[in-house]
């Protein structure tokens, strides 16, 4: 099965979880190709500015200082086909993808992908959304779930032209741990996405995947959270899961005994897989 992995920022992309995921695909025998958008310096700078504002310069420095290898060079050296285009949604991007003739597209942080691209793969396009679908669509859904006192989930789903409205493949709950803040939870969600996506893609290949359609009336699209609310989420996390608090074998159990506390029996860092499928 041929999997085209779509990413942006070839000049800086070096996320360890993405590397682990791609290596996992290669180890499982998938025919993998990497397709990067934002090829030129100007495109990269513009995209970085859009994402991080003036903090892009600082971010660039931080990323460049990381010891991890750039994904582009790392996988090219291993013989994985790498394609760079200016705009993934542009004509050149679609042409490059058609030339690869993938069975599956895997989106790893690409922004919105248009229908022209989604029409290319034989089977479909898969993405791991950081939030429980269909309830939490859109952006900052980890933060909104935490703010609302809900458990944190990630969802693997097929991508359609809507915002996180495609058929749901698998969901997984991510444990909350003592000392957590939003950044740590986000990082853990990224790590949790690796095994979830590998299992999901295996299931698609093996024909055992059972996608669940989302109804139009279900869920809600969330937008970027104002920093005041992010501060509240971090404060609520500190109160519910203080650093050094008793793990108790209950990774999600708040220190004060309140809240959801539903991941009974989980050890630190374990992923609760019981939430897969529809409950």
């Amino acid at each position: 099965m041929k999997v085209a992995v779509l990413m942006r920022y070839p000049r800086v992309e070096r996320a360890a979880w993405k590397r682990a995921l791609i290596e996992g695909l290669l180890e499982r025998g998938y025919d993998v190709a990497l397709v990067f958008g934002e090829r030129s310096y100007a495109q990269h700078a513009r995209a970085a500015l859009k994402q991080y504002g003036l903090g892009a310069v600082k971010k660039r420095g931080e990323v460049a200082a990381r010891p991890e290898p750039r994904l582009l060079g790392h996988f090219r050296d291993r013989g994985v086909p790498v394609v760079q285009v200016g705009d993934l949604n542009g004509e050149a991007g679609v042409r490059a993808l058609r030339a690869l003739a993938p069975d599956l597209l895997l989106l790893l942080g690409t922004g919105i992908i248009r229908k022209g691209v989604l029409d290319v793969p034989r089977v479909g396009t898969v993405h791991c959304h950081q939030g429980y679908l269909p309830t939490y669509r859109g952006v900052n859904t980890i933060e909104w779930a935490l703010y609302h006192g809900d458990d944190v989930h990630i969802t693997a789903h097929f991508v359609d032209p809507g915002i996180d409205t495609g058929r749901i493949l698998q969901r997984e709950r991510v444990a909350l741990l003592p000392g957590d803040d939003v950044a740590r939870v986000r990082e853990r969600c990224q790590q949790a996405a690796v095994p979830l996506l590998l299992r999901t893609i295996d299931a698609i290949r093996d024909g055992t995947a059972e996608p669940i359609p989302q109804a139009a009336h279900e869920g809600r699209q969330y937008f970027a959270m104002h920093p005041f609310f992010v501060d509240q989420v971090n404060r609520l996390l500190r109160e519910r899961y203080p650093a050094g608090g008793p793990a108790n074998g209950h990774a999600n159990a708040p220190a004060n005994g309140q809240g959801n506390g539903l991941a009974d029996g989980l050890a630190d860092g374990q992923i609760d897989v019981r939430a897969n499928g529809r409950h």
Partner: protein
Amino acid sequence: MTDLPYLVRRSLRDVLARERMQHVPFPMKLDGDEEHLRETMAWLLRAVEHGEGGVAGHYSLLHGRWLPPFPETTGYVVPTLFDYAALSGEPRYADAAVRLTEWLREVQHAGGDDDGGCMQGLYDRRRGKTRPIIFNTGQNVFGFLRAYAETGEERFMDSARRAGDFLARKVDARGVWNAALHHHIPHTYNARSAWALLELHEATGEARYAEVARANLDWAVAQQAENGWFRNAHFKPGELPNTHGLAYTTRGLLESYRLTREPAYLAAAQRTADKVLRLFEIRKHLYVFWDEGWQNHGKYFPRMRGRHVCVTGNVQFALVWMRLFELTGDAPYASSAFKMVDFVKTLQDLKSRHEGVRGGVPGAFPLFGSYASLKFPNWAAKFFAEALMLKRRLMEDERLVRPAPQQAEVAR
């Protein structure tokens, strides 16, 4: 005399800022709410000093001076001045509010004829005189009622009743306002006048005020399209509705829901507020004119997509969203509103030595845009001050700081 140097400098800055906004995240200014509020209120007080009895309508960079007062905006500035006096402990704001209300009484039509109790509009060139206007009269009810609540002076309540009586008299057979209107066309934004009548009903217990209000609110709801857009929300014949008028309508319906608990008013307000929130979140700000498909248009070249921002309308929708949070407890409304307030903070100049500019809120972004062009309107400052004070209250609201767990449909 035109403030040309500032005008050129500011226009250039705005154009550059607008281009930058295409490439960077929300242009937030997270700190300094207190300073922005203090300077906005100081600007409003200067507008009172230059307002010939009322609140100067604008500071115009083109004319290089303060322009004459609008009775309707003077009416709704009064409660904001009282609110800030209570918050800041500075009685001069309350004194100014009382002076303004006295002026409103002076310009209120005193006769016992059919127009008694009304507020005149601006000079009508076609008729060669000023005319009674429903909207102006409705907005002054807010001022009279608040001044009465603060001072206990019966003359203010008397003025409120006379204004209310005029509004109740000027309805057609269906109970809808079809006369004494700006540009002689009905407007859904008179939902704000209906809200004022409901407030008067609350204060006096007189049922006819509520009956007229509800008839007009029902008419406004009937003007709403499925997608939240309103017919008859425009100010002038041939124009499209602008963000300011749509926000007037939405706020009127929302506050009327608060007073009547009529679910249709909340549903209508939410339909528009939700659509506009989505437009704001995707585009980062709200343009001036909207067609029935929520496409933005220019004023002078209607076929072109207008990219000018109606700043006051943006702030007014921030207020709508914050009030929606207060009424529904739905936190994402407040999050979007806070972002909008941060955006408008970036448009306010707090360092200028220019008294017409420092603390003022521009009508448009860029400054030369197609709403209150090259001006700082008093209502933009009023709504921004109101938004900052409401934001302050919300940031201490237990429902925001300690949200109750939501019964969302999430696997547990």
